């Protein structure tokens, strides 16, 4: 497996696991009408982001130890990245419009922050999901 594909697998799994858990905790607190303090909110977010950062860092170290660490992306790598980024861009734009133009009239500040985070996470999941799909299934022109 190429380092680029493995990186996308790691990112995809990490985002789904850690930020999935983060949003489950956040929505559970909201439904239970529990309002955490600012530090608690930042703490939960820091745990999710920190866990992802540690996993990604380990993957980068493993990639650096491999003999093909200086391998440049070839035409297929670039095509897969281009297509995945193109789709993820529209997901991000749609989310940005929703968060920026609709939510400010309805939601609290912290809900807007979490929604913005959710949009970024979803766009990243789409991006890395499509990269993985591109390497596994291939894309015919």
């Amino acid at each position: 497996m190429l380092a680029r594909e493995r990186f996308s697998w790691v990112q995809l799994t990490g985002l789904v696991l850690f930020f999935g858990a983060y949003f489950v905790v956040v929505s559970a607190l909201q439904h239970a009408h529990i309002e955490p303090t600012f530090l608690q909110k930042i703490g939960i977010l820091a745990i999710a982001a920190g866990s992802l950062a540690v996993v990604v860092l380990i993957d980068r170290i493993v990639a650096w130890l491999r003999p093909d660490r200086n391998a440049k992306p070839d035409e297929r790598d670039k095509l897969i990245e281009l297509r995945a980024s193109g789709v993820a861009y529209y997901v991000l734009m749609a989310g940005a419009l929703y968060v920026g133009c609709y939510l400010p009239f309805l939601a609290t500040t912290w809900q807007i922050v979490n929604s913005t985070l959710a949009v970024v996470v979803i766009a990243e999941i789409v991006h890395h999901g499509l990269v993985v799909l591109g390497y596994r299934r291939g894309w015919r022109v």
Partner: protein
Amino acid sequence: MSERKLTNNIRTLRFMSNEMTQAELGERVGVTRQTIAAVESGKYSPTLESAFRIAEVFGKPLEEVFRWEA
């Protein structure tokens, strides 16, 4: 227009070229082993430049390496 699939003889040509590995071919063409594997299995259509380079490695014209599936 009917949808036609592009196939190739890379696997056979590698075998006939002293069982050249995918990694060797990839190195000579300037792509990764995984890209050669994807081209061979029909999961990826190479750029025109890479297609010509692959044909050049085997010393064959392009149409002997790549062709439309019958």
